[in-house]
């Protein structure tokens, strides 16, 4: 008999990815490249979650998929912000993506290999993404003066990204330590993570819905 925690984390939270996916497919013809990149990230997230849930169901270790997904997620989000910013920012984004990918792979293979949660990769990734997000807010405040905040699709998407990465930073940082204190505790803490993930998906869905504007 699976617990409610397992059901919430393994089924309910991953399934909510269909909310933004629905709006993405409805408004796909209004999408520009940044929104398309985000759509690919959501599809990938859904697939990885499905694989991990299946593996977990059969008690097969699945941490390696989280390691891979964290690196790809960072790269796709970096490309998303790179496309949103001016071309002059490319020279900043490309080295960041390259260095992060190399360090993420080193961490996956040599440091926090398959047996540990990739807290280093996720924490660093979240900090950099928070910086992207804040830079985006500054840019919007200076340039987006013709339309109201709510009508811009990118504002909702950026809010979703900022809320998810800023709120979960604590969880990513202390995940492995919590595991040492009490393995049961991690499960409870990850329920908070999944609730914020659902909120992120809802904000993405609003963003995709506003793409018409």
């Amino acid at each position, binding site marked *: 008999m699976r617990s409610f925690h397992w059901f919430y984390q393994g089924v309910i939270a991953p399934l909510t990815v269909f909310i933004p996916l629905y709006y993405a497919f409805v408004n796909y013809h209004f999408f520009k490249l940044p929104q398309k990149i985000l759509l690919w990230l959501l599809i990938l997230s859904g697939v990885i979650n499905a694989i991990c849930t299946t593996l977990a169901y059969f008690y097969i270790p699945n941490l390696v998929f989280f390691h891979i997904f964290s690196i790809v997620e960072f790269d796709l989000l970096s490309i998303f912000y790179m496309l949103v910013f001016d071309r002059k920012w490319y020279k900043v984004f490309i080295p960041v993506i390259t260095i992060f990918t190399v360090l993420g792979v080193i961490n996956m293979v040599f440091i926090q290999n398959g047996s540990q949660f990739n807290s280093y990769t996720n924490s660093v990734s979240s900090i950099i993404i928070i910086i992207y997000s804040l830079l985006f807010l500054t840019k919007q*405040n200076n340039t987006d003066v013709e339309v*109201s*905040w709510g009508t811009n699709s990118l504002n909702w998407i950026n809010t979703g990204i900022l809320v998810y990465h800023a709120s979960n930073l604590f*969880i990513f940082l202390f995940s492995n330590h919590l595991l040492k*204190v*009490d393995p049961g505790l991690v499960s409870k*803490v990850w329920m908070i993570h999944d609730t914020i993930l659902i909120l992120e998906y809802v904000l993405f869905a609003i963003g995709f819905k506003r793409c018409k504007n």
Partner: protein
Amino acid sequence: MQKLTNDVLLLVVAGTGSIFLLVVSFILINSRSQNKMLLQRQQLQKAEIAHQKELLNAVIESQEAERKRVGRDLHDDVGTALSSLRLIIEMSKPTENERGHKAFITSTKNIIDKVIKDVRGISHNLSPTTLSYYGLVAAIEEHCNIINQSGKMEVKLENNAEITITSLNLSAATALYRVLEELLNNTIKHAGATTTMIGFDEQNELLLINYNDNGKGMVLNAADNKGMGMQNIESRLNNIGANYKINSGIGQGFNIEIQYKVKQMVD
């Protein structure tokens, strides 16, 4: 052990919750301020559009008034004179009397002269030929002479901008002429002034025009109640990209300083 677990859980929940609240508040404040800025911008744009509409209305109304004036002048002066001429010719009978013949010729000549004078006046009002042939200062001088001769008030003209004023193109010169004409009209109609001073000065590429009258002045803060004449002045100056500053007050006369950057002609 259980207590430690609970404490750690509480700490993580509190930390995550605090950051979550902080981020949400930050986003809310940010979006609110952005929307507020947008609203202010829209209000400004609305006010600007309303002002532009007012100016456009003033231009249309003044065109209409000009047409009416030309129509009235043609009807009252030229039309009446020509009717009189027709009547005189119709009434005249062949006569051997030389005095009668001379009287006929004199009266018809007088009427024809009046028609010529009236037509010249109307044509001058529509487009002063002096302006295109001899420039702004000569046209203004001519206008001032007419006013001075009428005895309505004394207008003095001082030109210290001979070089700059010659580089004025015709459209700018016409606009400035119309502005000065409107100012003089306003002074005659509303200010009750006895003397008006018009000064032309130059500073680098700037043409500076200073207009002063010693009339009763006007209240400046009544921006919403500008008359058609003042709106016309504003519209014409805006059109040529001239800056202006009005100084006036009740009992203090009227003064306007106009600055116009004369475009240098490229060889």
